[in-house]
């Protein structure tokens, strides 16, 4: 039996107003509306959310873990991007 595969969606849930949506998991659904319904049933059975986003999984472009050093290492040496790099006279107090 060869059935057509049902598309995969990534689910993001906002648990409280004031917080960003956070990745919760994924669901399979034929279309966006059914994906939302499934996401609600699967990921918010105990008041975990006030808002749900579903995104087709194949619409996400992800960085390659192999590029991790190239992408993220350079910031390691840029300590002048942090406030603690700068000297402020003690008498001035908290800044």
């Amino acid at each position, binding site marked *: 039996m060869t*059935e057509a*595969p049902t598309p995969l969606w990534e689910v993001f849930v906002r648990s409280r107003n004031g917080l960003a949506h956070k990745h919760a*998991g*994924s669901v399979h659904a*034929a*279309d966006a509306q059914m994906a939302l319904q499934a996401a609600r049933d*699967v990921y918010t*059975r105990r008041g975990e959310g006030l808002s749900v986003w579903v995104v087709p999984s194949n619409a996400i472009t992800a960085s390659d*873990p192999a590029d991790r050093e190239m992408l993220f290492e350079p910031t390691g040496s840029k300590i002048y991007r942090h406030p603690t790099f700068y000297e402020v006279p003690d008498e001035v107090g908290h800044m």
Partner: protein
Amino acid sequence: MYTQALNTKETVTAAEDPAREARFQARIDAEDRIEPNDWMPEAYRRTLVRQISQHAHSEIIGMQPEGNWITRAPSLRRKAALLAKVQDEGGHGLYLYAAAETLGVSREEVTDQLLSGRAKYSSIFNYPTLTWADIGTIGWLVDGAAIMNQIPLCRCSYGPYARAMIRICREESFHQRQGYEIMVTLANGTPEQKEMAQDALNRWWWPSLMMFGPPDTASQHSDKSMQWKIKRFSNDELRQKFIDATVPQARHIGLTMPDPDMRFNEATGHWEHGPIDWEEFKRVIAGGGPCNRQRLTHRNKVHAEGAWVREAALAFAEKERARTQQKAA
């Protein structure tokens, strides 16, 4: 546990890339989590796919023995709780399938492995639920055993599996408590009710102990799984924790474990059990349990009956897509 069949032997292939594998192991040793696109040894991926999908299948098949009693629950309160519990188990299956899919298998593939009987699921779900007390016993013992096994899995080295387990563990506590509450009620009820509770305990106790898998002396899979921090405790360690936790719970409500050899060892502080019938375990895993056929037949039947729904939903989605495209043109 829900993945007992992993305890069968598998030929370990030679390291594909020793240097890479050493770096991988160093990350694991440093308690770093492995994420889906990270490099991983093929055997690690394979072990996880099998373990996670077997775990998912167990959740899904596990809906059947309890679903059997939804329409016959003795009160609306019990019915609502059981319905919510069975729905949770369906949810657990779905979180886990999603985690397995991050390793490069499709939902269709793993579903097909279950339907065709090639994949295993926990032996415990091949026993019948004969009375209402079985529902109490399952929540108390089967979910209780599952919790013992699943809490350490929340720290599993594979990120998506660990995250799914955290979500599951948060939901399991209710399952166990509602089960024990049923047992408390029956044990404090009429003599017939108490007898029913004891009878269910008699039938489920040994299969519950088998959920943890073969004794450490016979388990061939644990070493690698321990080294990879997929598993953090051995079968026997988890089984012992479970026994130590549940024996006092049974005694508290005047029920007795059906084990004449059960005794408390003052020196070790542990409850010691009599011999487990591993022949029965092997038989049930191999398909010879009381309900193996029924469980799989039912799963196949409902899957086939749902085919037109999946087809119709996809056809509708396709039609909508064509319509939007036309409007845009």
